[in-house]
C-alpha cells in the first residue's frame, strides 16, 4: 500500500546554517514514528516542513500521495498538526475554538458537532467545554491542542512534543491515546524523552545536527541498546582482571575505591556470574545495581558511531 508520508532528500537552510540535511523517510498506516533528538537537532524544523508551515530548501514531501508544494490543499486535508506551542485562540471557549478548527479543516457542516464531541471525549475535555482557553491550565491547553489535531480524523497526525507540561497521569493518558490513534492513522511524534518513544512508538528515528543517524523499529532500538551496565560495590578491592575474564563483560570502569561499573552485552548477561565470582573470591558483595541506559548514553553511542 501507498505510504502516508514519503519524505525525499529534505534539506532546510537558515541562511548558511543547515538545520535539516538530506532527511528521507516514509510512514505507513498503523505506524507511530518517534522523532528523537536533542534540542536544536532539527526536529521542529522537520515537523514544520511536514505540516506546510515552512518551505523546504530542497527535497520533496508527499502526504497521502499528494505533493505538499504542488497540491497543498489536498495534502493538508489529511494532516493534523500540533506545533510545539499549541496554536490556541485564548479569547475563545474550547467549544468555539474546536468548532472553528473543524470548519477550517473542511469538516462537513452536519458532522462538525459530532467531530467536536468525539475529539473532546478522546482528550478528556468534556468538563471544560464552555471555559475560555485563556483560563485553562497548561495541561488542558495542551489537550485542546491535541484535540485540534485529531478533530477532523486525519490520516497523518504530527505531534511536536505532545506531553510537555502535562502531569504524569495525563502523560499516561496521552500515550494511551497515541497508541490507540496509531492503530488506524500514521503518527509522527517528536520528543526528547526516550521512554516516551519506547512506550508509544512502533518506529524510531534519531536526528542529530540535522541528519538522520538512526532509523529503526522499536525492536531495532532495543537491539542497539543491547549493552547494559551494572554498578558493583564490594567491601574489599576486587581484582578487575578476574572480572574482565567473565564471558559477556565488555569493559570495567573504576568509579570509587571499591566501586566498579561493569559494561556488558545484553545477549550474554553475566550478572549472576559476576555475583558468584565476587562471593567466591571473598570480596564481599555490598551492592549490585543494574544501571538503566539513558537517552544520552544511546545518543552518545550513536553519534560517536556516526562520526567514526
Amino acid at each position, binding site marked *: 500500500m501507498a505510504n502516508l508520508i514519503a519524505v525525499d532528500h529534505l534539506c532546510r537552510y*537558515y541562511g548558511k546554517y543547515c538545520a535539516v540535511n538530506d532527511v528521507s523517510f516514509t510512514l505507513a498506516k498503523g505506524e507511530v514514528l518517534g522523532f528523537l533528538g536533542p534540542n536544536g537537532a532539527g526536529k521542529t524544523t522537520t515537523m*514544520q516542513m511536514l*505540516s*506546510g*508551515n*515552512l*518551505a523546504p530548501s530542497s527535497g520533496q514531501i508527499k502526504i497521502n500521495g499528494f505533493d505538499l508544494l504542488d497540491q*497543498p*490543499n*489536498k495534502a*493538508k*486535508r489529511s*494532516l493534523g*498538526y500540533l*506545533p510545539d*506551542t499549541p*496554536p*490556541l*485562540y*485564548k*479569547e*475563545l471557549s474550547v467549544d468555539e475554538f474546536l468548532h*472553528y*478548527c473543524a*470548519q*477550517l*479543516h*473542511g469538516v462537513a457542516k452536519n458532522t462538525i458537532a459530532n467531530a467536536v464531541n468525539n475529539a473532546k471525549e478522546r482528550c478528556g475535555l468534556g468538563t471544560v467545554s464552555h471555559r475560555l482557553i485563556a483560563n485553562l491550565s497548561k495541561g488542558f491547553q495542551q489537550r485542546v491542542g491535541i484535540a*485540534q489535531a485529531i478533530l477532523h480524523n486525519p490520516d497523518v497526525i504530527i505531534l511536536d512534543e505532545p506531553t510537555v507540561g502535562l502531569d504524569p497521569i495525563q502523560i499516561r493518558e496521552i500515550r494511551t491515546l497515541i497508541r490507540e490513534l496509531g492503530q488506524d492513522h500514521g503518527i509522527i511524534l517528536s520528543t526528547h524523552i526516550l521512554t516516551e518513544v519506547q512506550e508509544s512508538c512502533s518506529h524510531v528515528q534519531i536526528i542529530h545536527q540535522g541528519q538522520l543517524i538512526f532509523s529503526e523499529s522499536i525492536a531495532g532500538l532495543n537491539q542497539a541498546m543491547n549493552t547494559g551496565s551494572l554498578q558493583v560495590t564490594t567491601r574489599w578491592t576486587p581484582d578487575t582482571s578476574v572480572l574482565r575474564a567473565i564471558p559477556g563483560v565488555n569493559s570495567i570502569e573504576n568509579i570509587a575505591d571499591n566501586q566498579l561499573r561493569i559494561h556488558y552485552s545484553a545477549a550474554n548477561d553475566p550478572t549472576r556470574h559476576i555475583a558468584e565470582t565476587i562471593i567466591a573470591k571473598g570480596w564481599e558483595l555490598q551492592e549490585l545495581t543494574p544501571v538503566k541506559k539513558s537517552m544520552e548514553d544511546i545518543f552518545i553511542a550513536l553519534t560517536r558511531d556516526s562520526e567514526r
Partner: protein
Amino acid sequence: MSMILTIASREFKSLFISPLAWTVLAILQCLLAYLFLTQVETFTLIQPKLATIDGAPGLTDIVVTPLYGNAGIILLLVTPLLTMRLICEERRNKTLSLLLSAPISTVDIIIGKYLGILGLLLLLVFLITLMPLSLLIGGGLDLGKLAANFLALLLLVTAFTSTGLFMSTIAGHPTVAAMGTFGILLLLWILDWSASMNDQRSELFEYLSLLRHFQNLQSGLISSIDISYFLLFTATFILLSIRSLNNHRLQK
C-alpha cells in the same frame, strides 16, 4: 470561498468578543455626533443669510460633506489600531500555524482576514450615515451627494484597511504595524498639500494623494479615475500581503 467566509466571520466575531470593537464604535459615534451637531447648529445660524444668496450651499454641503471629511481623518487615525493585530498577532501567538497547516490557501487567509476587519469598518460607515439620514425627518437632503459621500468613505476605508493588513503581515510587532500604516496613510493624505503649496503643481503627487481622490468623490463627481484609484490601491496592498505571507514560509 466558504473558507474565506469562515475566517472573516471568526475575525469579525473575535472583534466583538473583546471590548475593542465596542469601544471604537462608541467613541467614534460620540465624536462624530458632536461634529455633526455643531455643523447642524452652524447651518441653522446662517440659514437666514443663505436664503438671500443665489446658488448658496445647501444643507448637504454644510453638514454632510464636512461630516464625511472628518470621519475620513478620524478613520485615518483609528484604522491602523484596528488592523495592526490581523496577522502580526497570529504570528506572535503562534496561531498562524493553525491556518497554515489547514487545507486553505494564503489567498483565503488574507482575504478572509481583510473582509473580517472590513466588516467592522463598514458597520461604522453605516452608523455614520444614519446621522445625515436623520435630517430627512425635518428637511430635505441632496441624496445623490449623500450617496457620493457614502461611496467616498467606503472606498477610503477599503484602502486604509488593505494598507493596515499589509503592514500587519510584514511587521513583527503590532505597534510597529500600526505606526507603519499610520505613516503611509498620512503621507499619502498630505502629499497633496506640498503640491498645492508651490505654484507649480506636481501632477504625480496629486494623483497619488488619497485626499484628492476622496474630495473629488465627496464633491459628487463620481469619476472612474477616482474609483479605480481606490480599487487599485486596495488590490495592490492585498496582493502584497498575500505575497508576504507566502514568503513567510520560505524564510524565517
